[in-house]
């Protein structure tokens, strides 16, 4: 029997996007591009079930409707471009701040070992974005919905972040939907590229 894809979208409709159907296998990075205002972020919000919309999504064999909203979002995790921090210290936002793989990831993303003790009020927007990615992965999701994950980063950190994300997605493996603007980035990370044109997603020829 054929293994079902990790994430399957069945006729998702939100805003002016209509009946978006898509399959993403474990280890796949599907990049999503489109002009601003075309509904990329809202599509990710719909998949994470944060807004009322039409259609159904599946994680493996299980329909989204069979999960509690919070359980679904714990597995299919949306990571917004600007992450929010509500406790005083960075580490308080992590499920297990002493985990070994977390320390390795911190170093890979260019952070000092004591970054988890930092005051969140002192974080720059780039630090917030990288730590937001790290925090999401630390919750061990199955699917990543990445909304411009490198939007606030400089060139060095973009390279670090891409490498780290690809490694996480490949090793676990995770399925990823990655909203991006930069065509070079898409060429570097994507296994598939879809472009929003009007109401639909169109596959893009590339490489």
């Amino acid at each position, binding site marked *: 029997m054929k293994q079902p894809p990790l994430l399957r979208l069945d006729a998702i409709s939100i805003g002016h996007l209509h009946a978006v159907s898509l399959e993403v296998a474990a280890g796949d990075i599907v990049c999503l591009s489109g002009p601003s205002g075309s509904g990329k972020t809202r599509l990710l919000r719909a998949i*994470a*079930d*944060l*807004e*009322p919309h039409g259609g159904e999504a599946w994680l493996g064999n299980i329909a989204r409707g069979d999960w*509690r*909203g*919070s*359980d679904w*979002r*714990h*597995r299919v*995790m*949306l*990571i*917004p471009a*600007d*992450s*929010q921090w*509500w406790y005083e210290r960075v580490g308080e936002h992590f499920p297990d701040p002493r985990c070994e793989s977390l320390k390795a990831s911190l170093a890979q993303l260019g952070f000092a070992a004591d970054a988890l003790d930092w005051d969140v009020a002192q974080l720059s927007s780039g630090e917030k974005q990288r730590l937001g990615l790290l*925090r*999401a992965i630390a*919750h061990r*999701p199955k699917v990543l919905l990445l909304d411009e994950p490198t939007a606030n980063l400089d060139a060095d950190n973009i390279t670090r972040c891409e490498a780290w994300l690809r490694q996480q997605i490949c090793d676990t493996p995770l399925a990823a939907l990655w909203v991006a603007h930069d065509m070079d980035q898409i060429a570097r990370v994507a296994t598939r590229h879809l472009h929003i044109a009007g109401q639909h997603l169109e596959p893009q020829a590339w490489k």
Partner: protein
Amino acid sequence: MEVIDLAWWQLGLAALLVIALAGCSAMSQLGVGRSLLIAATRTVIQLTLIGLVLEALFTVAHLHWVALMSLAMLLVAGREVMARQKHRLKGGWAFGIGTLSMFVSSFTVTVLTLTVIVGPEPWYTPQYAIPLLGMMLGNTMTGVALSLDRLTDSVWRQRAVIENRLMLGQRWHEAVGDLRREAMRSGMIPTINAMAAAGVVSLPGMMTGQILAGSPPSLAVKYQILVMFTITVGTGFGTMAAVAAGSRRLFDERERLRLDRLSRQRQ
């Protein structure tokens, strides 16, 4: 001790003082002169009317008249709770949640106090029931209105944080937990402060009234303690119920934050 009767002309003297205040505030351009006079007039009319209603109620003293009066008081309080919120739940929920939580807490505590503690015969004797319920409702109303306003306002401001917490897979009550506790606290703190300051900073109005009416202070104090306790309990439970119900309504069955269920800020 006989209560000294107050004649209308004597009240007129006090009214003159209010008019003098209005005149002074008009001269110093405070912009409150008009509303001061309107409010003073409303006090006279409203209290005169309620005096007539209470006199009629006391002579009839039927359970269903007392119940009708209580219901009217509850509905007015419910409307007031709704009017005091900047962002309120749409579709009658603001009124419904406020009124229901006030009903559950104030009425339960009042009936319990009347039947178990004070014990007039019959238990709904309006001389006891109506003032007690009035004080309960007045304070519970303030608590519920404060806490619901705090809840909806802080959820509105912090929607990004709440949604980010939802994105990480938190349950709705975790994601809004801090704000919920804050809202409950802000509804309960005024009554807690009132208890702490009672007799030291302020002489409570009911006790003062009872003493003026000739009760021995020791009895007035006992009534005041009873009323303060019941007010605190009523406000506390009313606030908790209203915030619990209100915050649940801000999320739907998929645990999504639904700010579209709040009306826009009044201008």
